[in-house]
């Protein structure tokens, strides 16, 4: 499959009239990792001789992204998402292949390029100065040479959008993770970058904060026409806000297209596990199949397209004494399997 050509045509499909903003061609990143063997004797031997294994974190990835798109870049842990983002942002130099963003090669014109992008790392805060939010804003105003007018406008906009007025005077180290993430987002956007890279921005946040964060991202994309690339391994992030999805697994690109098309790959069967208070003999039903039958713990599976979850739950809880239940969420791994 020539992903490059496919991707380009997708780009036109999705309304990209001009040349794509981001062009990634045959991108590869290979690491050399020392092979570690267990056992004392081998550790001793490693004092003298070492073996290296090549790990291909990213292999032959190609895609194009147009201005204003909101792209979800998803994959399981270790699939190569962060590595791709690092190459897109100029932190990492590719082993081979090319990345061209708005005519620039990220790692080559680093200073100029940095002015045009904003980046938020989900697990790391970039606010390392021990200053209150306000002062940090001022600092970034200086760094990115933001005009007074743009600065005022954006500070007001983001303070309101992200609901930061409560903690704008608090020193950074006293903020919670959710607040820090908001702050990071605001700072990334202050200089009105053309592109916003988000590397797992919802990780570690509680359900409510995650939801809010997704809404912010969508809002930013809409209001400021910023091109957003969002990496995550949480399916919900994608479902709510992205129109286009790129799926990567073990360094390779598996899927690149619209969300609707992507949904087709989701497994149709949902599993629910029930824990019963007493020993129960689960009756057979048209609605579902029993796939695991233990005395107190039973798992059933049903076709989402034919039966509603709420009906299944109602049926079982009405007939039996259910102590607890859990619903198995679709995981990336299942979708990956389905696509391959």
């Amino acid at each position, binding site marked *: 499959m020539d992903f490059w050509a496919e991707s380009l045509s997708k780009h036109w499909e999705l309304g990209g009239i001009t040349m794509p903003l981001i062009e990634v061609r045959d991108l590869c990143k290979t*690491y*050399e990792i020392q092979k570690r063997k267990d056992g004392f004797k081998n550790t001793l031997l490693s004092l003298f001789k070492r073996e290296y294994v090549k790990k291909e974190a990213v292999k032959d990835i190609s895609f194009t992204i147009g201005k204003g798109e909101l792209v979800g870049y998803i994959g399981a842990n270790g699939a190569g998402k962060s*590595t791709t983002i*690092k190459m897109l*942002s*100029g*932190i*990492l*130099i590719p082993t081979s292949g090319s990345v061209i963003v708005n005519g620039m090669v990220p*790692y080559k014109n*680093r*200073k*100029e390029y*940095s*002015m045009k*992008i904003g*980046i938020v*790392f989900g697990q*790391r805060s*970039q606010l*390392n*100065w*021990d*200053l209150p939010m306000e*002062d940090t804003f001022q*600092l970034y105003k*200086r*760094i*990115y*040479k933001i005009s007074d007018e743009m600065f005022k406008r954006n500070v007001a906009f983001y303070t309101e959008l992200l609901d930061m007025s409560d903690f704008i005077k608090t020193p950074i180290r006293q903020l919670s993770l959710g607040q820090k993430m908001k702050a990071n987002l605001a700072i990334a956007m202050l200089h009105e970058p053309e592109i916003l890279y988000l590397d797992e921005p919802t990780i570690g946040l509680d359900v409510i904060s995650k939801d809010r964060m997704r809404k912010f991202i969508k809002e930013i994309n809409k209001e400021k026409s910023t091109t957003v690339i969002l990496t995550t391994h949480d399916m919900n992030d994608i479902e709510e806000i992205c129109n286009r999805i790129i799926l990567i697994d073990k360094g390779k690109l598996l899927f690149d297209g619209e969300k609707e098309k992507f949904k087709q790959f989701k497994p149709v069967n949902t599993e629910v596990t029930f824990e019963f208070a007493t020993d129960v003999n689960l009756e057979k039903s048209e609605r579902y199949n029993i796939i695991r039958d233990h005395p107190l713990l039973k798992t059933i599976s049903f076709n989402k397209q034919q039966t509603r979850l709420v009906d299944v739950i109602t049926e079982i809880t009405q007939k039996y004494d259910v102590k607890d239940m859990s619903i198995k969420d679709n995981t990336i791994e299942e979708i990956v399997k389905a696509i391959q």
Partner: protein
Amino acid sequence: MLDYIKLYLDFSKIKLKTQIESRLSFFILIICKIVGFGATGIMLWVMVDKFDFIGEWNPYEILLLFSFNMITYAIAGCFFYDFFVQLPKRIRTGELDEVLIKPLNPTTYLICRGVSAGYLGNVTVGLIAFFISVANLHIIFSLKDILMLILLIFGSSLIQCSVFSFSYTPSFWLISNNGVRNIIGDLKSFSDYPIAIYNKVIQFLLTFMFPFGFISFYPSQYFLNKSDGAFFNTSFPILTILVGLTLAFAGYKFWIFGLSHYQSTGN
């Protein structure tokens, strides 16, 4: 261009401001540093007090040597301690990435980020030692001497800065950097004493291969009118400046090389 200079100066100001704001914390920092370096100094003093002479150097001459070491280390540490000592941690946690995604020169940014006023303690101790020594040795400074002093301190400080780079930049390649650091540190501690007391091989090492002799020994000789040492040459004191510039340049290049390796291999 001027814009950037002003920006970096502002960073430094902000860093210093936040550092001094917590006065108690700052005070404790200074005390700890004085205690740390004071211990080495006191041990040196005890030795010299008991044994009268170390080589051909009397206690006050040793004090001058000590003051040179202390002052030049303080100058280098003020700008580069945080920069390099935090480097292994920043590489491990990926914090170094932050530096690569800003529209700033990474080196200048890290210097300003790490500038520390904590070295005031060292400078004070060093200056006190210097003046005590000069007073007791009855050294008189002509205008030429004062100029030399400034140049020599400048050159030595550059050597000290380069030591930071050579000691810590290897952490781009080695996960555990202690070995390199310790060796360089040990070799440098040779120069706490007048290197003329060591055998020829070591003096060669400290003059031509790891030029730590140029940090305090050879410069001190200028003011003490001494010429001991197996390889002594009248040009040595002033050679300090050349050595400093060369090593500082090499140290800078090494750091840049390490940084580009970081970009190729990630963390």
